[in-house]
């Protein structure tokens, strides 16, 4: 186990190096940071000077090497725009994104999995067909549209929920949480729903598809033949077997919820990493982009590691290493 994790940690480092490499190759195409860093009165020469100072004229692998050199020491540089250490910025933003993602992931799972099971068990019933169809409407509308429609309805017309931001937050150490205040919770509702809808649809459909397969297996039949309670058969036996393949996607989804809450965050002006990142793209704030991408790489490596470990925890067949 320790060996396994050590191996994966080594791979993670490699992954992050490659991510950084690609990132630096890519930054050339995002635009020019200088223009956003200076006012219109700044002369051409001063711009060139600034470019030189920042090392933007260096070949990209020189920039890359410099970045890695610093990153190894835990220094991800300073935001061009905000003139603040990037690690500080990300630490400030992480809690917001994390809380939002976890709440919506939870929402997607708590609604998605039982719904998937239900629709698989009652494959032909009107209600499950209706649900399957309705769930599609949610995903065929773009996220930004869903967000705006929610704002329009609950924020502007009904005025039930705040339209933007995170509400009051409570500071616990470096972590800021919105889960402890009323306005924080209220602010969370709409973004979380917006973010969860897509994941939920996917989970419902996947669980249903896998569940249909598993329900036909002999061991489920045998479990029924032993008179086990339907709850045991459907959830303990069938659902668990369903989860092995579904786990992958759920893992990926949780990862991408964290990583790419970009649109939701910018629609609701949710002060998380996604907003920071989209802002950084607009401003070509290379240090932020680089650090963010590395963080996301790390998150995915960790999530995939967890998923791989979970496979083995859930599926004993994978524990054999005979071949």
């Amino acid at each position, binding site marked *: 186990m320790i060996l396994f994790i050590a191996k994966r940690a080594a791979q993670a480092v490699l992954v992050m190096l490659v991510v950084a490499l690609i990132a630096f190759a890519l930054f050339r195409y995002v635009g020019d940071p200088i223009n956003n860093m200076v006012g*219109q009165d700044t002369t051409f020469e001063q711009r060139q000077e600034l470019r030189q*100072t920042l090392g933007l004229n260096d070949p990209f692998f020189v920039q890359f090497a410099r970045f890695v050199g610093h990153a190894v020491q835990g220094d991800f540089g300073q935001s061009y725009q905000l003139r*603040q250490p990037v690690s500080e910025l990300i630490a400030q933003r992480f809690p917001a994104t994390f809380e939002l993602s976890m709440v919506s992931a939870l929402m997607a799972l708590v609604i998605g999995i039982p719904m998937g099971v239900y629709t698989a068990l009652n494959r032909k019933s009107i209600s499950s067909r209706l649900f399957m169809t309705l769930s599609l409407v949610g995903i065929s509308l773009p996220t930004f549209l869903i967000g705006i429609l929610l704002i329009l309805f609950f924020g502007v017309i009904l005025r039930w929920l705040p339209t933007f931001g995170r509400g009051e937050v409570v500071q616990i150490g470096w972590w800021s949480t919105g889960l402890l205040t009323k306005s924080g919770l209220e602010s969370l509702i709409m973004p979380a729903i917006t973010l969860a809808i897509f994941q939920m649809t996917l989970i419902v459909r996947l669980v249903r598809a896998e569940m249909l397969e598993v329900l036909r297996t002999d061991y489920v039949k045998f479990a029924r033949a032993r008179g086990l309670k339907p709850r045991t058969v459907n959830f303990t036996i069938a659902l668990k077997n369903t989860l092995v393949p579904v786990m992958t996607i759920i893992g990926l989804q949780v990862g991408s919820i964290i990583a790419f809450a970009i649109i939701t965050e910018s629609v609701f002006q949710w002060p998380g990493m996604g907003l920071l990142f989209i802002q950084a793209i607009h401003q070509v704030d290379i240090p932020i982009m680089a650090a963010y991408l590395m963080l996301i790489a790390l998150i995915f490596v960790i999530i995939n590691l967890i998923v791989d470990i979970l496979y083995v925890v859930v599926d004993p067949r994978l524990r054999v290493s005979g071949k």
Partner: protein
Amino acid sequence: EPFHYAFQGDVQSLDPMGLNETFTIGYLGNIYEGLTHYDKDMKIEPGLATDWKQTGPDTWRFNLRKNVKFHGGQDFTAEDVVFSWKRSLTEGSDFKGYGQKIKDIKVIDDHTIDITTPEPNPIFPREVVYLYIMDKGWAEEHNATKATSPKAGDDNSTYAAQHANGTGPFELVSRQPDVKSTLKRFDGYWDKDIPTNVTDVTFTPISQDATRTAALISGELDMAWPIPLQDWNRLENAKGVKILHAPDARTIFLGMDQFRDELLYSSVKGKNPLKDKKVREAMAHAIDLKVIDQKIMRGAAEPAGELIGPQINGFVKSLNTPYEYDPEKSKKLLEEAGYPDGFELGMDCPNNRYVNDALICQAVAGLLARVGIRIDLNAQPKSKYFAKVSPQSGNDTSFYLLGWTPSTFDAHNALFNLVATFDTEKNQGQFNYGHYSNPKIDELTDKIVSETDQAKRQEMITEAMTLLKDDVGYLPIHQQPLSWGVRDGVSVAQRADDVIDLRDVVIEKAK
């Protein structure tokens, strides 16, 4: 009274020498002050200087205000002015341009200084509005004597980018980039006569137009801008909010590549049709500014014929009549120029910089298509757009849209940056992406800069602008509108540079 407002972007840095960007310096103008100050009509009024006069062609005497305290309790003295000026010239500063307008400062006494300029400068008081004064002691204490550098690991701290200590009517309470910044009224502010009754100010950046508008309508904000033009109707009809609008000092215009022998993006090979004045004229007559105003800008813009607007010193009213819309004439001109079937032309356009920028470009493309000029539109976010069209990549464009507000509110700024021949040596024409060039205008521009006789100066500006218009060097489109949404019961002064000065915000007592 609390005041809660939102803009589409955030304050970029709290360092007053950090970024010379309208919103940021506008916001910091509530915390910091310069020697002079714009009033709500963009007229110069005393700031930290009580009065000033030109004592020689290149010397100005400023008398400084007494009994002014910084938020931290320090006294304001001439030392601070000298310090701030020097700081504006340090490496990380984006205000070198302003700093360089000063050659030297001689301290006469604690509250009197003599400033010399490198050359005679008739509009000098305008140049120091945004040279905000910091406290020397405070900066030294926090190792913030240099402007915050964008580069990490430099010995200067980032303290000044996250903290503020000015003399303005509001002091900083907290700031979280892109999330929220709060100010509170500074008790010790020297000017007890400012109209505002605001005590606590919360500022939130909200980047999405729709979200911002929604937050305003739902009552979560007292004020928000910019409000998308198409939402004006909605806001007018909504209870409790109103639209405040006026022409912006910014003029939007189209520029054309007039220096290459063959256009980069065109079907015409071997020659550059845009060098031909007839073609430029044809384009000018093909673009219906009225319909753009009516349909794209919902009637809120001011179609323009001149590169600068009425708010700008040097504006000539007679030149501001747009080129006449006459597609027939356009076609005829094109035919005369040898393009009876028109041609293809690539166009670059930002899509998140100006009000409805991409839409304007699309409309222009549509209008030009009707006379045979087929536009291939490349609309991009501003960071990519500017990277492409600016001199650093060799002005990689054939036809582009740009907007300009002269930061000094003086015509020379526009002539120098947009119209004068592109020349890196002299730093002129840096925004003249199409390299329009007229030696006569260059000559005039050089003279305007130091001409102190206002009447003569105006004459020269008028001449230069007339030459430009005759050449069809640019195709002005309009002055875009300022578009603020304000809650009923809140009164604000809408400045032509799109800055809200909290000194003028008055909130009616809660009903």
